[in-house]
């Protein structure tokens, strides 16, 4: 069907609407919807044609003549896609604002149709003056539509918009006149040709003319900081229309800029880039302190537009990938922003915490988070694929600085979006439930489903053009996403499915892994399944738990299976997001989950940059295999190493980037803590393994990076342990202990010798088992006592004996005391350091070892020993399903303690290919190294026999021992007052704090608090410029024009 029908329908319907009588509003509304549907259908039909046949775009000549004598329109794949987006946005917006349109009557409907038609016109036209006309139409229509809002400030906002728009129009018109004068044509393509061949004597004049046109069109994108007027609009307009303003208007204006850049040529690309990146970073920063939801979305819209403008400005290096990248970002932005604006109509309050109203509607929560994920560029959405290619191309062209700015802006954006999501999930729900009329839900559903569908399309494009994976077609992710559909099932059914799926996947694939990966696969899948047993204790449906948990596990297993950098990174992001949702489920975990996701995404961006840098240093190929890391040489190699190592160390919570961990692990639910601590942390270690396996030692400016890691590991081990001993909260204690344990593992890896790696692996296995066990038993206790503060407990050993046994075995194993499995780790550690080059960092590790005893003893004493509190006298043992996995872990620990060789000897042999020297000798049950020997079976037997002999002896001589009551002890001839004053538990290690407390001042926490404060303050200061005065905004715009002009001329 001829593309001109879009205009015909648009104009015709608008005209027809005018003819209808006052009382025929419903008919008018039907006509409006029909017209927009029809316009969409036209675009859709063309999209199908172009996508199916791969046909070239073609021109439509109005007035029957070729340009420059008549206006021509162009329809191609891009135009079809963009007009479809615009028309659909219009259609759903009309549906969404049905009430408002019916109230205001046919005139409003006509204005909407004209606006949509004009936006299509901007996309389709190839005539510069025609472009101006469409812009004018939009200005009028927009101002009209803004007034539809019930908001009182809409009038002012619309007026400000008109002021600035006139300014813009004037510039555009003047520009067009001069450009026409210089080139003799109004046709865009003709003007581009003429501009390329322009007479040098008039090139200066043409440059100014072009500048005027360019700046005018760019101004339509509301660039930072000349955008105060636009923000008022976003805030004040009807959300149904704000979606159009953000998604459709932005799209059209961006395409207009793209057309203008064809005229301006490559000289103008840096200008676009500059404006784009300043806008992206600036608007995101300003969004940070926003409290009004729609204004925040406005800032975010502006930022996203800025990002796409940056991409437009970089089109010279993108080649064929240009539309893949720009399109991925654009569609993700448009759909997400439309979805969010439409969602905002359902929420009564205008502050961000008001969105907690959505809590009761899981589907709306899903819609919200889908939109947030699209905006943040998370897999499997188009923006993720675009982000990946964007980063690679920028780095390949040496534009790493620009990438750094983009990633910084993206991190800030993710920060405020996820903070918002945190409010939505965790803040108190308002009393009145939200109304969800179908006509408002449908557009939201369309946007969200569109986003997922485009995720699939981009995945397909990515796999067919770049040979990457379509993430939505990978089995683990698919499995995880099925739980979204199954969320209505009771929790135990889903739990069974999840466990079954994980075990089945493992049994199908276990033959594919090498020994190292096999260990991680066992921990992720089988270990995950064992931990999930604890989830049987949960009743009801447990909405949202399983998709999140399965997403995390899917990410983890995809991580091991990934052979190229893309698969690895995608898996990394998936597991990050999945674990974030899990952590967020905790009762008080809102700020901690936020800090987790921000640190994790920051780490992920470093990994992205690292992979991009790595790929730029090898011969161009569609994919970068992880193994190719080994081929990298100076000067790129150490930087890649640095970026990747920092990224992975964020996940293992190395000191400096550890502050997210204690809260995240401590506040998570009972069965989530063992998942995120015992299992998830291993993903970071796996990354480090992969990195070191392939890249080995690297030095930067003469500093050996593994040596630095050695220090970081040692300091982390020491400070993690030190901080653990001062915790009053049992789960926080365990969380800090994890930091310390990860420090040990990092240290082992950084030793860069055979036994160091073996030790790290031993830590991987041991830490998984005992930390999962300890978190479960402490979680079980906390569940029963209703507190995690250890000093409020005490004497629970007789009431919760099984939890006590698990804790006891756990702490013996953690502390490394023979005969349990922790000792193996220590023994390997000592052997490993004997061949290490560096000795000083060992001192710290030596110190941290005994410190572990302090917190471990505190854990078991203050909870299970000492004085039982009166209110706990009737407590029962923790629920069966929480105890069961603990008992499995106890058995596992025993097995690993007696026959560590069962697992380790295979890995030992595997590590030999990297470090041939120093392998252990596994003869019989004795394990021998170059320096010493150790026989776990003999140790277990000897210790057991001695213990039993002495125990038997004591039983014999002391057979009549009489059990006495709690207060029956020698107390200076006094009777203790009450358990609370007798249980020695609070501030347990006061002398230690006096002596060593100076080491645990929260410097790192203060540093990061200062960073976030600085960002907020900076944003707040800039915010004062946006004073709401139309004249000021006009002045901003003028300044902006002058600034860009100066920048351009200075280039």
């Amino acid at each position, binding site marked *: 069907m001829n593309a001109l029908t879009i205009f015909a329908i648009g104009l015709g319907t608008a005209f027809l609407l005018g003819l209808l009588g006052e009382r025929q509003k419903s008919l008018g509304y039907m006509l409006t919807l029909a017209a927009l549907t029809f316009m969409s259908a036209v675009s859709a039909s063309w999209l199908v044609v172009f996508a199916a046949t791969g046909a070239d775009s073609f021109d439509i000549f109005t007035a029957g003549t070729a340009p420059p004598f008549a206006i021509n329109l162009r329809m191609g794949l891009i135009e079809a896609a963009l007009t479809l987006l615009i028309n659909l946005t219009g259609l759903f917006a009309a549906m969404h604002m049905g009430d408002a349109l019916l109230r205001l009557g046919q005139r409003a409907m006509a204005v909407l149709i004209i606006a949509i038609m004009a936006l299509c016109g901007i996309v389709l036209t190839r005539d510069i003056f025609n472009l101006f006309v469409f812009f004018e139409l939009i200005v009028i229509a927009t101002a009209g539509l803004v007034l539809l809002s019930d908001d009182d400030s809409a009038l002012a906002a619309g007026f400000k918009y008109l002021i600035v728009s006139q300014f813009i129009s004037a510039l555009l018109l003047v520009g067009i006149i001069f450009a026409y004068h210089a080139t003799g044509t109004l046709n865009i393509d003709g003007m581009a040709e003429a501009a390329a061949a322009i007479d040098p004597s008039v090139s200066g004049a043409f440059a100014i003319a072009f500048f005027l046109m360019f700046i005018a069109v760019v101004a339509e994108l509301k660039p930072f900081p000349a955008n105060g007027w636009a923000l008022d609009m976003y805030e004040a307009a009807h959300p149904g229309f704000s979606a159009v303003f953000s998604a459709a208007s932005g799209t059209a204006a961006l395409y207009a800029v793209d057309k203008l850049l064809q005229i301006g040529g490559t000289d103008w690309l840096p200008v676009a880039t500059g404006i784009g990146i300043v806008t992206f970073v600036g608007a995101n920063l300003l969004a940070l302190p926003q409290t009004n939801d729609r204004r925040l979305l406005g800032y975010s819209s502006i930022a996203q537009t800025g990002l796409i403008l940056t991409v437009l400005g970089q089109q010279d290096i993108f080649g064929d990938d240009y539309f893949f990248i720009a399109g991925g970002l654009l569609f993700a932005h448009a759909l997400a922003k439309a979805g969010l604006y439409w969602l905002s109509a359902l929420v009564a309050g205008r502050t961000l915490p008001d969105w907690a109203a959505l809590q009761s509607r899981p589907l709306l929560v899903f819609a919200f988070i889908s939109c947030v994920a699209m905006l943040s560029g998370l897999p499997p959405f188009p923006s993720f694929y675009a982000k990946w290619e964007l980063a690679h191309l920028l780095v390949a062209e040496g534009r790493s600085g620009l990438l750094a700015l983009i990633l910084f802006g993206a991190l800030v954006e993710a920060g405020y979006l996820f903070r918002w999501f945190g409010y939505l999930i965790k803040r108190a729900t308002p009393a009145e439930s939200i109304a969800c009329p179908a006509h408002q839900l449908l557009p939201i559903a369309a946007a969200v489903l569109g986003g997922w569908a485009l995720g699939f399309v981009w995945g397909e494009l990515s796999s067919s053009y770049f040979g990457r994976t379509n993430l939505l077609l990978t089995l683990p992710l698919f499995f995880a996403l099925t739980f979204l559909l199954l969320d209505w099932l009771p929790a135990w059914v889903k739990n069974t499915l999840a466990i079954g799926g994980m075990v089945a996947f493992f049994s199908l694939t276990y033959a594919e892994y090498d020994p190292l990966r096999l260990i991680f696969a066992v921990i992720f899948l089988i270990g995950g399944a064992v931990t999930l047993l604890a989830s049987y204790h949960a009743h009801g449906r447990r909405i949202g738990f399983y998709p999140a948990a399965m997403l995390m596990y899917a990410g983890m297993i995809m991580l091991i299976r990934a052979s190229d950098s893309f698969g690895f990174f995608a898996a990394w992001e998936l597991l990050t997001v999945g674990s974030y949702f899990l952590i967020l489920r905790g009762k008080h975990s809102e700020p901690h989950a936020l800090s987790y996701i921000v640190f994790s995404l920051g780490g992920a961006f470093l990994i992205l940059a690292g992979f991009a840098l790595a790929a730029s240093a090898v011969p161009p190929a569609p994919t970068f295999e992880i193994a190719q890391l080994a081929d990298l040489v100076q000067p790129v190699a150490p930087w890649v190493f640095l970026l990747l190592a920092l990224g992975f160390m964020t996940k293992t919570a190395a000191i400096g980037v550890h502050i997210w961990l204690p809260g995240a692990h401590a506040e998570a639910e009972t069965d989530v803590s063992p998942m995120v601590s015992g299992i998830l942390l291993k993903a970071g270690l796996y990354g480090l393994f992969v990195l070191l396996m392939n890249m080995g030692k690297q030095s930067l400016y003469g500093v050996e990076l593994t040596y630095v890691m050695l220090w970081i590991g040692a300091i982390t081990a020491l400070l993690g342990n030190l901080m653990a001993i001062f915790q009053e909260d049992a789960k926080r204690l365990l969380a800090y202990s994890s930091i310390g344990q990860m420090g040990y593992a990092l240290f082992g890896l950084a030793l860069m010798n055979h036994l160091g790696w073996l030790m790290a692996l031993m830590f991987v296995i041991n830490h998984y088992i005992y930390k999962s066990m300890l978190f479960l038993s402490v979680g079980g206790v906390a569940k029963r006592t209703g507190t995690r503060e250890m000093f409020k407990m005490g004497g629970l050993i007789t009431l919760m004996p099984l939890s006590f046994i698990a804790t006891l075995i756990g702490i013996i194993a953690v502390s490394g005391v023979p005969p349990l499995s922790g000792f193996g780790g220590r023994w390997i550690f000592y052997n490993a350091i004997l061949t290490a080059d560096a000795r000083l960092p060992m001192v710290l590790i030596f110190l941290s070892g005994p410190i572990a005893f302090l917190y471990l003893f505190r854990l078991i004493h203050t909870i299970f020993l000492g004085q039982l509190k009166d209110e706990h006298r009737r407590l029962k043992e923790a629920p069966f399903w929480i105890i069961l996995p603990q008992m499995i872990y106890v058995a596992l620990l025993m097995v690993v303690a007696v026959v560590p060789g069962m697992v380790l000897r295979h890995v030992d042999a595997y590590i030999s290919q990297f470090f041939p020297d120093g392998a252990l000798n596994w003869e019989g049950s004795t394990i021998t190294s170059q320096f010493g020997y150790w026989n776990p079976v003999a140790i277990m037997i000897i210790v057991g026999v001695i213990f039993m002999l*002495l125990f038997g002896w004591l039983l014999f001589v002391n057979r009549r021992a009489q059990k006495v009551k709690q207060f029956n002890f020698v107390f200076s001839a006094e009777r203790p007052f009450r358990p609370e004053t007798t249980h020695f538990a609070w501030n347990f290690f006061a002398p230690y704090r006096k*002596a060593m407390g100076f080491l645990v001042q929260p410097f790192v926490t203060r540093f990061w608090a200062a960073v976030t404060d600085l960002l907020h303050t900076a944003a707040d200061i800039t915010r004062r410029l946006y004073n709401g005065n139309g004249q000021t905004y006009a002045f901003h715009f003028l300044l902006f024009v002058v600034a860009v002009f100066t920048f351009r001329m200075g280039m």
Partner: protein
Amino acid sequence: MDFDWMKIPYAFLTVFIVVNYGFLMTALIQKIGARVGRRYGIPIWQNYLDMIKNYGLRSSITHGAMFYLGPVFRLSGGVGLLLFVPSIYGSYMFSNLSFAGDLILALYFVFFGTLGMALGAAESGHPHAAIGITRGLSQVSMAELPFGLAVFSVALQYQTLSVTDIVAAQQGGMLTWTLFTNPLAVSAAMLSFLGSMMRPPFDVVIAPQEIPIGPPTEYHSSYLALMQTNRVIFPVAKIVIYMNLFFGGATSWPEFFLKVFLIYMWSAFVGVVFPRFRVEQSIRWFLVWAVPLGVLSIMVV
């Protein structure tokens, strides 16, 4: 596994010798300490009397399972430590059960008894026990550090973790002892030694002269007997490690008795001269005086 069953009676013999030697030696040292303080002191067989008395007590209570097991853990720790290290160099009979593991096993097994004892004492519910434990753990965490560094230094020096090999390397005259080949490590270790002997200035953990405080507070009768047995085995076992690592080991029982006595005397000697530290003071003391020596020893070895 081909295991020589004769090792079992041999091990019992070692324990028997060491227990009796320990009873007499600790009493002797008590006596020496008393004489320095111008007191007469206990009879040399006092420990035997105490044992008989403790086993003979008829009143016996328990606070629970861990309380009951505490002394068992404690004494298992002492006996195990003794048996994991060869007592007499070159003697198959008194090589004990050292085939099970090397120096690292011994070092970590030290904590087996400590931990078990702490758990047992904690179950008594007595705050003084818990206070004693926090003091003990706090102090030991820093006191053990110089020793750990010294061990690392010695292992680096001899390139082995096997106690037998380390002793073997020191055979050939006094000047081949680690004491003379690696004096820094030995100095660090000997300062650390003071911290683990429960004598002044580092005895605030059990504070023996004051009101009953510290882990043993609630223990009595046969529990106390087990703990007293450990009180004589454990220091000897620990000194055996010192002797083997730093002082050339012992090739015969008389040499063993003499060296153990002299090393023990070092802590007794310091103990009668210096007053007691508070815990945070002793932590700082080890950090300032002993740790740097240990660090130096691993840097220069």
